[in-house]
Every structure is written in C-alpha cells, then in structure tokens.
C-alpha cells in the first residue's frame, strides 16, 4: 500500500458523492479548516461535483494567511539588518507587509534564505558563526514540532546565533472564535487531519457539544474529503453533533504524545492576533522561559511598527467562512498571484490563490 493512489479512486469518490446526494434534504454549510484541504477540494473539483445543497466555506488553516501584519513587518525589519541571515518557508517571501515583502528586502541586499525545515536553519547557524540566523517560525500544530525541535537542537548545540520569530497559531481556539461570532454560517467542520495527527482530537467534543456542530477529522485525498463530507452531512441530516474520525490511518484520539511532549517543553499558550481576524485569546504559542533566549523579538529591537493593510482585502471574512474569494471586488482584477494584495492570494494554501488557480469565477 502506498497510502495515496488507493484514496484517489475516482469511481469510489463518485459513489460516495452519490450517497451524499441521496442523503441530503436541505442546504448545509461546512467548513474545511485547513488550506491544504481547500486546495485539494478545488484541485479535484469536489466543490463542483457535490450536490448544490452542500456549500463549502474555507477556514483559517493557512499559516501564511493568518500571520499578523505586525509580525510580517517585524520580520522585514529584522531581515534587513546587516548581521542577520533571515530564513523562512518559501511561501512567506511574497506575502505583502505594509510596504514591501521579503523578496524586496532580499533584492535590496538583505540575506533572506528559503529553507524546507527549521533544522536546516540551525545548520546555517552552525556554518555562519559570525552571523545571526533567524527563522520565521510560523504555522499551526503541524509545523510546531519541527519549529520546537530546532530550538531544542540549537540549545543542545550551545548556539548563540540562532533565534526564532514565533507566530504560532492553534486550531481549536479559532474554531471557538468562528462559531461564537453571531455572523457564523458554519454548521459542520472538517477538522484538519494533520493537525490532529499531532494533537489528537480530544479537544473537539467540547466544541461539538457547545455549538451543536458535527466535527469530522478529515484527510487530504479526494476519498478522505468526500468521506469527511459524507460523515458530516449524515450527522447533520440525523441531527447529531459528534466528533468522528475519517482519517484513522493517520490520526488517533490522543495524537502523537512524543511530539506533544516536545511542544509542551518549548511552547506555552499566549494570546495571538490573526491577520484579518483580530485577537483570539490563548490561540497562539510563545516560547517558554526555558527557551526565551531564542526569541528573535527579544533579541532584535525593531522599534514600534505602524501597519497598513490593503483597503480592498476581505481575506479576514473569507477565512471565517463569511465570504468567498469571488465576492472580493479585487479578486482576479487588482489582486492576482502576480500582484497579490492579501496573503490569501500568495500562499499555496490560501483560498484566493486556490480559486484563481483553478479558475473559479463564482461560488
């Protein structure tokens, strides 16, 4: 078994969709949390194959999209310093800050390097003892273990020239924030499978109960997605709101406890501002006291920062499931992947980029 092709069986996908078609009696709004799932849904055209009653709205699970403008501007200020080698996941380079992006900092002589893993950034720090290496530690619970491990390794190696600019965000508080808004349209959640592979799904029953929404842990292949949608719709039609797991080959209820132990050693919860959404209490991670020496915000004083968001961008409403990219007046006109006005048009996980890439003009 390769664990991929088996879950891309188009015939089986159509069968499950037919099952959904026969089950559904009214309209339902479901949110997939993860931007990776948004892209898979559009790539396979599942949004167009599903019965019209099922509306999918796209959640905030795109780390590049929700990293606050303040932090992007801080990153840009740190990256421009002559003693710094600034390292980041590739997606972050074109995310617009208030005035510029990391690409333009690099074009102006800043040392900005793309890494695949923060552990590569630690290697760069070892190889460049006369430079300060900073890693832009963005992400959800999925990149958390890697980002945490880099700090543990740097401490173990006694590196004084490695630090992280932490912008970590967590899924469950965002689900609370979305559902507690009076404007919320979300009636069921496809929970992000890979977040749950680390964290498990023991945090979700309280959400399902409090807001009366089904939550189904869902994977990323087309069959996973239609299975997650089927289980959510089946629950909605029968009036239940439980937590179910449609991704059991990867996810267990308790998650990976070894990864959680690393996370708990390095990070602790903190309030976090989400781009376009605002402050969500206890929705982020910051370094614990044991590792606070590795905090780039403490190491580099960049003064006070005045941010300026594009007046057109409605990404915040999109990420809360209130609007679709096609409802943004700038979509596909002023704002394209070549001229992005918001982060959701840049990231390979952003909803606007997915709509544009797969040619959606409506819905």
């Amino acid at each position, binding site marked *: 078994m390769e664990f991929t092709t088996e*879950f891309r069986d188009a015939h089986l996908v159509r069968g499950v969709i037919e099952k959904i078609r026969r089950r559904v009696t009214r309209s339902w709004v479901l949110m997939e949390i993860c931007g990776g799932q948004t892209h898979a849904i559009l790539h396979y055209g599942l949004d167009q194959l599903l019965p019209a009653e099922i509306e999918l709205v796209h959640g905030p699970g795109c780390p590049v999209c929700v990293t606050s403008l303040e932090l992007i501007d801080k990153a840009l200020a740190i990256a421009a310093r002559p003693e710094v080698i600034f390292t980041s996941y590739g997606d972050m380079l074109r995310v617009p800050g208030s005035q510029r992006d990391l690409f333009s900092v690099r074009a102006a002589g800043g040392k900005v390097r793309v890494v695949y893993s923060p552990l590569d950034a630690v290697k760069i720090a070892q190889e460049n003892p006369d430079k300060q290496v900073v890693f832009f530690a963005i992400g959800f619970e*999925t990149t958390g273990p890697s980002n945490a491990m880099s700090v543990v390794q740097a401490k173990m190696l006694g590196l004084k020239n490695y630090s992280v600019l932490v912008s970590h965000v967590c899924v469950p508080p965002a689900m609370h924030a979305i559902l507690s808004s009076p404007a919320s349209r979300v009636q069921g959640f496809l929970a992000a499978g890979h977040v749950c592979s680390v964290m498990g799904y023991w945090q979700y029953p309280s959400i399902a109960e409090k807001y009366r929404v089904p939550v189904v842990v869902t994977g990323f292949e087309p069959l996973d997605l239609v299975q997650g949608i089927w289980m959510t719709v089946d629950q909605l039609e029968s009036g239940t709101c439980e937590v179910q797991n449609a991704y059991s080959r990867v996810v267990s209820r308790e998650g990976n406890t070894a990864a959680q132990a690393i996370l708990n050693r390095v990070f602790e919860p903190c309030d976090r501002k989400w781009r376009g959404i605002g402050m969500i209490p206890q929705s982020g991670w910051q370094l614990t006291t044991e590792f606070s020496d590795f905090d780039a915000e403490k190491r580099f004083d960049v003064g006070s920062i005045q941010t300026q968001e594009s007046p057109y961008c409605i990404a915040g409403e999109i990420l809360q499931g209130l609007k679709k990219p096609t409802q943004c007046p700038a979509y596909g006109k002023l704002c394209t992947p070549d001229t992005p006005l918001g982060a959701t048009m840049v990231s390979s996980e952003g909803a606007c980029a997915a709509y544009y890439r797969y040619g959606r003009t409506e819905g």
Partner: protein
Amino acid sequence: MCLAVPGKIIEIYAAGGLRMGKVDFGGVIREACLEALPDSKIGDYTIVHAGFALNLLSEEEAQASLEALRELASIEDELDPPAAQDWR
C-alpha cells in the same frame, strides 16, 4: 508547508544529536527528524511536515477505511460508467 503526503522511511540514523531518517516520497528523498517516532522502523510510512515526521500510518486502518468506503459506495454499480478523469 502543510501539503504533506505520506513517505516511506528508507534509512534511520543519528545526526546533530537527533534521531533522523531518509524518507522516500514517490522517488523524492528527503531528510526528516524522527524524534517523535521513537519506534519507527525502515519500511514504515509517515507524514512529514517541515522536515519533521508527525506520525506513522496504519495499513490496517487504511484497509478498514477502504472497505467501509466500498460498502458505502456500493450503489456504484447503478451509476454511470467511471468518470473520464482518473486522478491516479
């Protein structure tokens, strides 16, 4: 950074004080940190994010899911012939 597909562990070693491994993603070989998978062995499938292996995949669970899906979609025979698109 989050579009992780499963890969197969083909080598395990220690480097920089960490349990590391080589993982094969359909022919593309990447290094991954295996610190959170102390019991992983060569031949296991894992999900890797940002160079860190998050979990092992269970073949037993995968087979059970596929079986359940086939049953769920057993109305398939009444459907039109398979769609032209094949995603494999």
